[in-house]
């Protein structure tokens, strides 16, 4: 039987080509993902392991939890602690480490590297073994800084140059005292690292006299474990935690692989979708191959092959196809893995160097996926093949597989769809977390149900297109009839396209509505002309606000300052504002009392008020981080949103209790209102600082929009693979139907249908099937988008369904284009068909 199967595969090479391609693409996606994530993860781990070479034991502060009326905070690693660590037996040296965000501008004033990778730290003493100097000398005082060699090279800085640097707002202009090299993972990934002397770093990063970490180096002959034990004995266990360097490297490696596995799983989901779509094509192909070979298979049965042998011969064919697809897919996947890094490089995402990693697991996964998916998809057609009665070999007429009734299928589909739709509708009225689960289940049920129902749906939906098709005369009419001739096949082909378009449309609707909601939330409550913040959304120095307030153009400004506090045994984050100006800078609806902030008067958002049973006039006691208690009175309750919420009080009241206050953002109203000129003046007034951003409401909206666009484009790219696979399916189906209908096409040509009309007929059939899949997909996608929106809407008052009509129209056009492209080759084949051969063929 194996020989029969092999011969069959070879005999139907061309017809199996699309199947192989479809599986291959899916496998390539899977193996490409694995190769890429393995490679990147490996490279990161190598580079991070190097970063812990100089650390034998790291001492870090413990976080002391909030308790009673005490606000939780980190223990402080003081100089006294460091000295104690340095004197522990077995310790060679103890280095205090301070780190924080440090933006470095290039010569044109732009931020060097991406925001989150701009790091700053301290250079220990006059010679820090962590950072070997290439040139220059150790920094001294606030006027000197060291730069890493990669950033210096990129920006063209040399020892002696002046650089613009910003840590929390104000611009500093120190001189580059030297350049150093480092194995730091951030720098390897394209970030920058600037080093100050220790006192400067401590004051810049708001940690006067304390460290973030103390790195202890062991004396020769002392192991990491022994040193850790000695340190544990000497240092207060309540305040610090010690970890060996080896352990740190391991932890980091684990963290890296955890974050890579998240990325990997995300990509594999999309690969899975592509493969799932691929199974439709495989099943379709084998169903058609079996149907075409009815007589052959019946002959096998007649000469004594058992049912199982017939099934097995079909499965062996599938296995061969799957193996070929697996191997070619693996090769293509390795190419994708290598190419992806180059692509990211081109987008400015630098990844650490490392060899391409093709793990044995990747090879196994590629082959396994290819073979298993193909065999699974071919299983049903194989069973159907076994049911062919031996007598079919004897009948002279081409035995058509009797069209089984669709009644059972339709009933099942209707039940599944109804259950799915009901679950989704119920979920929209539920709480978000339970609703999510119910909705996910409903979505799976509904998609399955609609898939099962597609043969039934194909008739009315395609009939709806009939008036349009009639414009194309006989070709149109024949195309329409051909497309509903084998509802199962049409359904499977259209479903493949439907799945991709459902996801694409659903994502688009969701993202569009969400963007709209966030946009409204962000901008509707703001009356200020501008919002100033760090590009990283990190803490801002209060200096920035002072500077803005002093600017003659600025008519009103208020910082938004975060401060933790304990109220009634709970941690509440207070927002410190300028009580005089905040009312004019925000536009918040006050439901109860009045919006007045100042002295002991505060305003509270609805949710917080509800949780504490407060209303206008309620009194409360807040304990600040310095442990002091303050009596406050609620003057009003306002409707909060994701940007502005919580308890707002005057900074004059708050700042007395804060050791090192910092702002999250600053709202500004200017005399010039919102205009390019006013904005430019504001930017200049802030010292043209690369770390700061000045945004008007439109900028905020644009920022939100561009974030959504980026995510959507990535999703489109990833789902594009599923669409490509679906196109292969359409090509395959058409090629098969042209092959099956050769005799009909020959007759049509004989009685006078010209080549162009034959081509048009095939193209229209393809168009109809594709548009059918497109309409189903877009319809389902909108429904899912709506349902998810309803679920989220319970949390987001500004949420409303935004239907991207232009996009939806584009998707439908895209489906049509897909159909026409897919028909190119089959239509040519149909037109070229040898008429006489076709007529005689029986």
């Amino acid at each position: 039987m194996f020989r029969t199967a092999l011969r069959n595969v070879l005999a139907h090479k061309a017809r199996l080509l699309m199947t192989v391609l479809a599986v291959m693409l899916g496998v390539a996606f899977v193996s490409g993902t694995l190769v890429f994530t393995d490679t990147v993860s490996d490279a990161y781990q190598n580079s991070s392991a190097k970063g812990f070479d100089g650390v034998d034991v790291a001492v870090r502060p413990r976080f002391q939890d909030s308790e009673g009326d005490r606000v939780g905070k980190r223990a402080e690693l003081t100089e006294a602690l460091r000295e104690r660590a340095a004197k522990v037996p077995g310790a060679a040296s103890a280095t205090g480490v301070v780190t924080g965000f440090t933006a470095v501008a290039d010569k044109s004033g732009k931020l060097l590297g991406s925001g989150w990778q701009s790091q700053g730290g301290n250079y220990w003493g006059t010679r820090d073994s962590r950072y070997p100097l290439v040139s220059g000398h150790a920094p001294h005082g606030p006027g000197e800084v060291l730069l890493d060699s990669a950033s210096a090279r990129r920006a063209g800085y040399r020892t002696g140059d002046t650089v613009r640097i910003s840590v929390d707002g104000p611009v500093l202009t120190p001189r580059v005292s030297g350049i150093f090299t480092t194995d730091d993972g951030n720098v390897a990934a394209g970030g920058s690292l600037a080093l100050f002397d220790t006192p400067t770093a401590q004051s810049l990063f708001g940690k006067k006299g304390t460290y973030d970490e103390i790195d202890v180096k062991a004396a020769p002959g002392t192991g990491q474990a022994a040193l850790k034990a000695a340190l544990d004995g000497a240092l207060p266990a309540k305040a610090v935690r010690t970890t060996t360097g080896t352990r740190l490297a391991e932890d980091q490696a684990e963290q890296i692989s955890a974050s890579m596995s998240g990325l990997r799983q995300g990509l594999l989901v999309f690969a899975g979708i592509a493969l799932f779509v691929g199974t439709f094509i495989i099943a379709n192909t084998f169903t058609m191959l079996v149907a075409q070979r009815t007589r052959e298979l019946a002959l096998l049965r007649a000469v004594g092959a058992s049912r199982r042998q017939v099934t097995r011969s079909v499965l062996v064919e599938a296995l061969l196809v799957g193996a070929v697809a697996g191997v070619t897919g693996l090769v293509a996947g390795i190419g994708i893995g290598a190419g992806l890094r180059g692509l990211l490089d081109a987008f400015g995402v630098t990844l650490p160097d490392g060899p391409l990693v093709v793990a044995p697991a990747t090879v196994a996964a590629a082959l396994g996926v290819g073979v298993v998916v193909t065999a699974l998809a071919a299983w049903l057609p194989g069973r159907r093949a076994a049911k062919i009665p031996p007598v079919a070999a004897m009948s002279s007429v081409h035995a058509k597989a009797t069209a089984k009734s669709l009644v059972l299928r339709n009933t099942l589909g209707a039940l599944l769809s109804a259950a799915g739709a009901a679950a989704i509708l119920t979920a929209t009225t539920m709480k978000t977390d339970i609703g999510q689960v119910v909705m996910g289940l409903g979505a799976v049920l509904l998609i399955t149900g609609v898939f099962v129902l597609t043969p039934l749906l194909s008739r009315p939906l395609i009939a709806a297109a009939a008036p349009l098709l009639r414009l194309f005369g006989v070709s149109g009419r024949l195309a329409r009839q051909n497309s509903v001739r084998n509802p199962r096949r049409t359904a499977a082909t259209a479903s493949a396209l439907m799945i991709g378009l459902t996801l694409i449309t659903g994502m688009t609707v969701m993202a569009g509505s969400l963007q709209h909601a966030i946009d409204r939330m962000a901008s509707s409550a703001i009356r200020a002309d501008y919002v100033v913040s760090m590009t990283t959304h990190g803490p801002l120095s209060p200096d920035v606000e002072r500077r803005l307030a002093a600017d003659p153009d600025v008519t009103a400004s208020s910082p938004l300052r975060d401060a933790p506090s304990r109220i009634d045994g709970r941690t509440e984050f207070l927002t410190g504002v300028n009580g005089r100006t905040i009312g004019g800078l925000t536009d918040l609806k006050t439901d109860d009392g009045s919006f007045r902030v100042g002295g002991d008067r505060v305003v509270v958002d609805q949710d917080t008020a509800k949780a504490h049973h407060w209303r206008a006039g309620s009194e409360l006691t807040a304990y600040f981080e310095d442990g002091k208690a303050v009596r406050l009175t609620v003057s009003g309750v306002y409707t909060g949103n994701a940007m502005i919420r919580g308890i707002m009080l005057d900074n004059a009241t708050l700042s007395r209790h804060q050791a090192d206050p910092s702002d999250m953002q600053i709202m500004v109203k200017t005399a010039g209102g919102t205009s390019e000129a006013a904005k430019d003046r504001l930017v200049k007034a802030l010292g043209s600082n690369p770390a700061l951003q000045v945004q008007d409401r439109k900028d905020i909206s644009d920022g939100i929009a561009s974030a959504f666009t980026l995510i959507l484009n990535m999703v489109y790219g990833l789902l594009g693979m599923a669409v490509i696979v679906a196109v292969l399916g359409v090509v395959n189906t058409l090629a098969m139907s042209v092959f099956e209908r050769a005799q009909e096409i020959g007759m049509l040509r004989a009685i006078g249908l010209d080549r162009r009309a034959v081509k048009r007929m095939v193209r229209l059939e393809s168009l109809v099937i594709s548009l059918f899949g497109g309409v189903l997909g877009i319809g389902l996608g909108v429904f899912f988008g709506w349902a998810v929106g309803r679920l989220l809407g319970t949390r987001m008052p500004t949420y409303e369904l935004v239907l991207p009509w232009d996009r939806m129209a584009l998707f439908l056009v895209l489906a049509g284009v897909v159909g026409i492209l897919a028909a190119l080759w089959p239509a040519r084949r149909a037109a070229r068909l040898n008429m006489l051969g076709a007529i005689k063929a029986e």
Partner: protein
Amino acid sequence: MTTTPAPGRATAVAARASELSKIYGQGETRVVALDQVSVDFRQAEFTAIMGPSGSGKSTLMHCVAGLDTFSSGSVRIGDTELGSLKDKQLTRLRRDKIGFIFQAFNLLPTLTALENITLPMDIAGRKPDKAWLEQVIGMVGLSGRLSHRPAQLSGGQQQRVAVARALASRPEIVFGDEPTGNLDSRSGAEILGFLRNSVRELGQTVVMVTHDPVAAAYADRVVFLADGRIVDEVLSPTADSVLDLMKRFDAKGRTS
């Protein structure tokens, strides 16, 4: 071959082949399917082409009907010379001037009987002549089954649809390629009766390839082919006279 007009019929020629040759391959694999065949098919005459397998009878019909190309010679349908036509013009010629009946019925399973009958006119974008259509449909006895699909019809009924399709557009000539080959003798007789009636009563020209002497007996004239040449001709044949002629060829050592 000399041809004699059937008594009481017009003598105009519907289709004519002159010195028609069809050669496949080259050198050692060269096969001569038609060897300088000249034949006229007169209007309102029912001609049967007979001959053993491989004699070239189907090739002759395909060439004259514009389904196949030929190597040399000429073919005319009415006033049109086929040799100079491109595929597109040939297609139009077949659509407008020729009707076909195939051995394997060749109906479109998705269309009803009526839709199948009017298909050639639909392709041409013409409205069928209602009265004529009814006459044709009435003649083949399909009036009650026009909304049936081919799968719901018997073989004989399907072939009747094919006959109606061939006649409905009033072609200048109808070609049949073993039209009774897939039918039992009763259904076959019916079909042949319709074809003969269409010639007698409607003045249609019909050319049919067959290997069945009984079928050939329905024709006005039988042309015999062997080895790509016309070897004999019988006018007003009967099954016996055709059979006799066939036996004679067999006696000469030809095999069928």
